[in-house]
C-alpha cells in the first residue's frame, strides 16, 4: 500500500512538469501586459518599459519559464507582480477559507445527498422518489450565482439572518456553502439513487433477504457500502474542484477564497500567482484523486494495491 502510494506520487512528477509548462505557455498566450496594467493609463511607454524590466518580463518567455522552475525547485512559488507578496502567503491566506468552505459544502451535500438518494432508491417510482428527483435535478439546474444572489436578497437583505459577505463568523459560510453545495448534493443524490437501485438488484441483496434481514439492515448494512464507491468518486472529484474555489460564488459572496484570488490575478495578468495557483490546483486535484483511489480500497476490497 505504502509502496503503491509512493509509486503513484513519483509518477505524478513528469505529469506536473508537463502541466506546468502548458500552463505557462497558456497564460502567456492571454493578451495583456501586467506592466502596462500596473503602470496606469497615464504612464509613458518608457515608464512601462522600466517597470517591465524591473519585473523581469522583458526576458524571453522560455527564460522566464526556466527561472520560474528553478525557483520552484527551491521551494519558491514566486512573488506577486502587483503586491510583491509571496505567492505562498497569498495562497496560505486564501486556502483555509476555501478549504473550510469546501468541507462544509461537500459535507452537507453528502449527508443530504446520500439520504435523499437512499430515500429515492427505496421508494423508487413513488412520490418520495419524485421529490428526491426534482430536488436533485433542481440542484443541478440552478445557476449557483443566481441562487447566491437570491439567497442574499432573502436571507441577508430581507431577513438579515446571515451576512451577505465576509467570513468574520461561521454565519458567513452558510449561504456560500449552500450555493456551492446545491449542485453537488444533487449529483450525489442522483448517483446514490442509481447506484443503490442497481445494487438492490444484485444477488447478494436477495441472499441477505433470504437470511431474514430487515430492509433497513439490507440498505444500510449491505447495499449502501457497495454504492459508496460511486458516491465517493463523485464526491472526491467535486471536492477537488471545490478546493480550486468557485469563481462565481466567491464573487457573489465576496468570499476571500482561491477562486477570487485566481480571477483577480488573471485580470491583472499576475503571472506568478496565476501560474502557481493553477499548478497547485492540478496537484490538489490529482492528490484528491489519489486519496479517492485509496479510499476505494476501504469500500471495495477487490482493489489491491500492487
Amino acid at each position: 500500500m505504502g509502496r503503491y502510494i509512493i509509486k503513484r506520487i513519483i509518477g505524478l512528477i513528469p505529469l506536473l512538469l508537463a502541466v506546468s509548462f502548458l500552463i505557462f505557455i497558456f497564460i502567456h498566450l492571454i493578451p495583456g501586459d501586467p506592466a502596462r496594467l500596473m503602470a496606469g493609463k497615464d504612464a509613458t511607454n518608457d515608464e512601462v518599459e522600466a517597470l517591465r524590466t524591473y519585473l523581469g518580463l522583458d526576458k524571453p518567455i522560455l527564460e522566464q519559464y526556466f527561472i520560474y522552475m528553478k525557483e520552484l525547485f527551491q521551494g519558491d512559488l514566486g512573488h506577486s507582480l502587483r503586491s510583491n507578496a509571496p505567492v505562498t502567503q497569498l495562497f496560505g491566506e486564501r486556502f483555509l477559507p476555501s478549504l473550510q468552505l469546501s468541507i462544509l459544502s461537500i459535507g452537507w451535500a453528502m449527508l443530504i445527498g446520500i439520504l435523499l438518494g437512499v430515500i429515492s432508491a427505496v421508494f423508487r417510482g413513488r412520490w418520495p422518489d419524485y421529490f428526491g428527483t426534482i430536488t436533485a435535478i433542481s440542484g443541478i439546474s440552478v445557476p449557483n450565482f443566481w441562487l447566491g444572489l437570491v439567497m442574499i436578497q432573502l436571507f441577508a437583505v430581507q431577513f438579515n439572518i446571515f451576512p451577505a459577505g465576509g467570513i468574520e463568523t461561521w454565519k458567513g459560510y452558510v449561504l456560500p456553502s449552500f450555493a456551492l453545495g446545491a449542485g453537488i448534493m444533487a449529483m450525489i443524490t442522483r448517483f446514490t439513487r442509481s447506484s443503490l437501485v442497481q445494487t438492490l438488484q444484485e444477488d447478494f441483496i436477495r441472499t441477505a433477504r433470504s437470511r431474514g434481514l430487515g430492509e433497513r439492515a439490507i440498505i444500510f448494512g449491505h447495499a449502501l457500502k457497495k454504492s459508496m464507491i460511486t458516491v465517493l468518486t463523485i464526491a472526491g472529484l467535486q471536492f477537488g474542484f471545490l478546493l480550486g474555489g468557485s469563481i462565481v460564488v466567491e464573487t457573489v459572496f465576496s468570499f476571500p477564497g482561491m477562486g477570487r484570488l485566481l480571477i483577480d490575478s488573471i485580470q491583472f495578468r499576475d503571472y506568478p500567482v496565476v501560474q502557481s495557483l493553477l499548478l497547485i490546483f492540478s496537484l490538489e486535484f490529482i492528490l484528491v484523486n489519489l486519496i479517492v483511489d485509496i479510499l476505494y480500497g476501504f469500500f471495495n476490497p477487490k482493489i489491491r494495491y500492487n
Partner: protein
Amino acid sequence: MKNLLAGIGLSIIAMFVLSACATSGSSDEGDSTGGDGAADKSEVTIAFQENIQTMDPHNGSAGIDNSVQYAIYESMFTPDEDGELQPLLATDYEISDDGLTYTFKLRDDVTFTDGAEFNADAVKANLDRIIDSEGSLNNYKSLRDVEKVEVADDYEVEVTLNNINSQFINKIGMLRMASPDALENDIDFGEESAGTGPFVLEKWNHGDSLVATKNEDYWEEDLPKVDKVTFKPIPEDGSRIAMLKTGEADYIFPVPVNDVESLEAEDNIEVSVVESTYVNYATINTSKEPFNKKEVRQAMNYALNQEDFVKVVKNGYGIVSDSALPATNNYYAAQEPYDYDLEKAKELLADAGYEDGFSTEIWGSDSSKDKRGMQFIQQQLGEIGIDVEIKQMERGTLSDEINKPESAEDSEVEMWYVGWSSQVGDADNATNPLFSSSSFPPNGSNTAYYDNEKADKLIEEGLHAKSEEEAAEKYAELQEILWDDAPWLFTAVDEEPTAMRKGLKGIWRSADGNFYLREVEWE
C-alpha cells in the same frame, strides 16, 4: 452504514472546527459584527469595491491603495474637503523666482513608528527611491521633471526641476513618506509598516481585510480617536450594501447609485454625495473615417441626450459634462453645452456626407457600469443612423488592444468608452495624457488620436505657466478648443455617493476618489 453517515458528519464537523481553530489564532476576536449595528465605538470598518493591491507607499496605483496607505503613511501636504492643499508633514513651501526650485519646511516633532526620525534626510531618501525606480514605482510619474533633491537643513528640503511645472506641488505634496530605515532594510510593506500616520498596519489578509491599529505615539495630540480601522474589499455591490445595513461595515463606497434611495430610507444610515473628478466619455478616433470630420463628431454629441445619460446610466447621480475638465478641477471652464438636438445632428451628418449614417464599434471594459453606458450610447446614436456595435473586453485584453498599435495609422479603436479621474489641482494630468499628440498609445491615453498643434501648445504652456492666472488662462483656452473639436463623445461627470452609519465623523471622500480618515471618530 448509518455509522458511516454519522462518521462523515462527525469528521466534517471535526475538520471544520480544527481548521477554524487554525484561523482563530490569526483573526481577531471576531466580534466586530454586531448584528444590529450597535457598533463598537472604538472601531471603524470601511468596505469598498477594489482589492488593495500594494502597501508599498510609493507604488500605490489604484485609488484604494492610496487611501488605505494615507491612514498609515503621510505626505507633506494633504487636501482639505474643498480640495485646497493644507500642510501635514511640511509646514510650508516656497518656489524660487525662476519657478524651478521648491523649498519645503518640515515639521520637527515627528517620528516614524519604527523609531526613525522624520527630517529632511528622510524626505530625500523617499524621493530618491522613487526617482531611482525610473518608472518601476508608480509614483515616479509625479517626479518626472525633478532634476535633483537636496537637503538644505535638518528640516528643509530643496527640490529642483528641469522645467517649470505649474502642477508640481500637487504631485510632490501628496507623496507618502516611509521611514528611511525601513527603505534601507527593504522591509516587506505588506507585513509591517513604518510611517508617521495615525494608524499602524496590524495584519493584511490579501483579498479579505487589512487591519490597522492606533498609532499610540501619533504626533498630533488627541488623534486618532479610534483604536482600530478595518479595510475590506467587497467586490459585490449587493454584499457591500447589505454589510452596511447590518452594521458589518460602517462606511462604504462606491454605493451603487441604484441603491441610494433604499439606503436613505434607513434610519441609521447617512448617504452623502460627492461631486467627483471622474469624467465619463467615449473617445472618437479622429484619425479614422468618418470621425476625422468634425461635423460627424459634433453630430454625435448633439445626438446624445446627456440628461438621459445621467438618469439612465448614472441613475441620476452625475453632472452633465460641459467641458473636457470636470467642474471640480481648479482650472475648469464651462462651455456652451451640446444640446440634445437630433435635427441638428442629422444635418451635421448630412453636411459631412453621411446622411444615411454608418456603422462603428465601441470598445469598453466588461464592468456592468461600462456595459450600461455603452448600451446607452448605442441606443442614442442609433437614432441618427449610426449603428454601434459593442465590444466588451476584459481589461488586460482591452489595454493590449489599445496599446499595441504604435501609431494612429495602425490604430483599430474607433470609440472607447472610458473615464478619467485626476487630482483636483492637476489640470495637466487631466489633459496631457488624453489630448496631447505625444500621448498616442502606447505613450498615453489619447485614443482619440487627437492631433491639434494649438492644443499641444496650450497643454505645454499650461504646464509651464509661471503663475496660477497664466495657467488658468491657457487651460481655459484649451478647453474651448477641445469642446468645439469634440474628440470625445461627452457624457457626464460622476457624483459619487458614499454611505455610512449615522454617528461616524471625520472621514470624508475627496473629489478625486481618495478617502481621508485621520480624524475619524464616533459621535
